[in-house]
Structure formats: structure tokens, C-alpha cells
């Protein structure tokens, strides 16, 4: 029985393990614990199903992000443009 209690997992723990597994960072023991929990718990099973769907949507969306240097560049250009604009306003 001691072995089983080691495998025990609360739903909250299962939820974050499930997320961890979506990013392929759960280890074998964690995956086994999650599997067992999901076998026994309908709510978490549904949650996992949705979570997988969300992952596939995220993959499909193929989101890109600007690097921090690109963002810095935007800020710089905005600042330059802004000071030019205010100088022009002063002239008028």
C-alpha cells in the first residue's frame, strides 16, 4: 500500500503536472502518477483533453514574438520621432 500512497496526487498537483507534460518536461514518475490520477478522475481527464487541444491550437497559431532588441529599437525610434515632432511644434 505504501507504493500506492506514493502515487497519490491531488487534482491541483495533477493540473500543473498535466501542463508540465504538455511541454514535455514531466519525468517518468510524474507521467505515471498523472496517468493513474487521470484514470481515476474524470475532471482531470477532461482538463487534460482541453489542455491538449489548447496545445494544438497554440502550435497551429505559430505565434512569433519580437526579440527584446527589436523592441528596444521600436522604443528608440519612437523617442527620436517624438523629440523631432515636439521640436517642430516649438518652431511653429
Amino acid at each position: 500500500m505504501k507504493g500506492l500512497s506514493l502515487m497519490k496526487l491531488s487534482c491541483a498537483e495533477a493540473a500543473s503536472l498535466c501542463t508540465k507534460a504538455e511541454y514535455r518536461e514531466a519525468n517518468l514518475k510524474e507521467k505515471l502518477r498523472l496517468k493513474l490520477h487521470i484514470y481515476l478522475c474524470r475532471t482531470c481527464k477532461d482538463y487534460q483533453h482541453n489542455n491538449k487541444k489548447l496545445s494544438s491550437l497554440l502550435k497551429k497559431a505559430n505565434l512569433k514574438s519580437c526579440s527584446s532588441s527589436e523592441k528596444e529599437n521600436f522604443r528608440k525610434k519612437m523617442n527620436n520621432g517624438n523629440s523631432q515632432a515636439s521640436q517642430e511644434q516649438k518652431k511653429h
Partner: protein
Amino acid sequence: MEENVLNPDKWVDRYADYLFNYTIVRVNDREVANDIISETFLAGLNSMKNFKGDATERTWLISILKRKIIDHYRRINSGKGQAEVKMNFPNSEDEGDWLEEKVADLSDMTAEDRMENTELGLAILECLDQLNEKQAQIFKMKTIDGIDTETICNEFNISPSNLWVIIHRARTSLAKCLEKNWF
């Protein structure tokens, strides 16, 4: 109702990724996209007095961006005088002269699919806006940029289990937000 106000200091943090994803699928070149986005922010700054507050900040910036993208198309086409339409005329030696047989393979991802995926991406970014800033940031770093757990934990000074709880919560809100249109 909340009043829409402009807050240019936050533009880059809040909308750069959104504008970038909108632009890149249309111009297909990172550098060009960045130039167009810079122009958009600048144009926004210079026409702040025209903002009436009926639209959200994001919608307003997108409307400027759209014009900048059209300007870009005009610029690259002006050298040729006209937009160029290329058409390959069927070679009579090939089998099948019907145009239907000449269309591209349907299993390819069409421009339409790509647009739909971009729309999905923009919907996701809009939903992420509703999360608190730290949550959204951690989620993006992990999911979009694929940064490893340890690096993020160090940067935010949190434990790995903390990180997974945060990401789990972000994903739950995201799923709820996307539910209406995409699930």
C-alpha cells in the same frame, strides 16, 4: 464603460508582438515587418490628437498599421508601374489543358489557411492581454519563445513548481477566453 485612452509608453510592450504577427504573414520578411511597425508607432504618436476614444488602443493602432502595409505594397509595386500578375500558360505537351488541372495541390496550406491561423494567433494574444502581466510574460516566454524552465525561474526568482502553477493558470484562462470562437 471604460474610457479608451492612449498610453504610448506602453505601446511596445503591449502591442509589438500583436502588430508583428499581423504584419509578418502579410509581408513575409522580418526586417520589412519591423520597419512597418516602427512607422506605425511613429504615425500613432504623431496623430494622437485624432484619437477619439471610440476604439480600443489596439484597434486604433491596427487601423494605422493596415494603411502602412498598403503603403508598403504600393511602394514595392510603383517601380513596375503596375502590380504584376504572373501567369504560366499551359504547355500543350503536358497532359490536361483544363485550368482545373493546373491549380496548386489542395493539400498545400493555402493563403486562406495561413490567414486563419494568424487570426487564431491574434485571438490568443488578445486573450493573453487579459491576464496579469507577470503571468502573461511567463507564459509567452515558455510557450512562444520556448525558453527553458530554469532560465525563467531564475529571472523571476520563482521555483519550478511555482512556474508550472502559473502556466497552468494562464492556460486555463486562455482556454476559457478562446472557448467561444475556437474550441
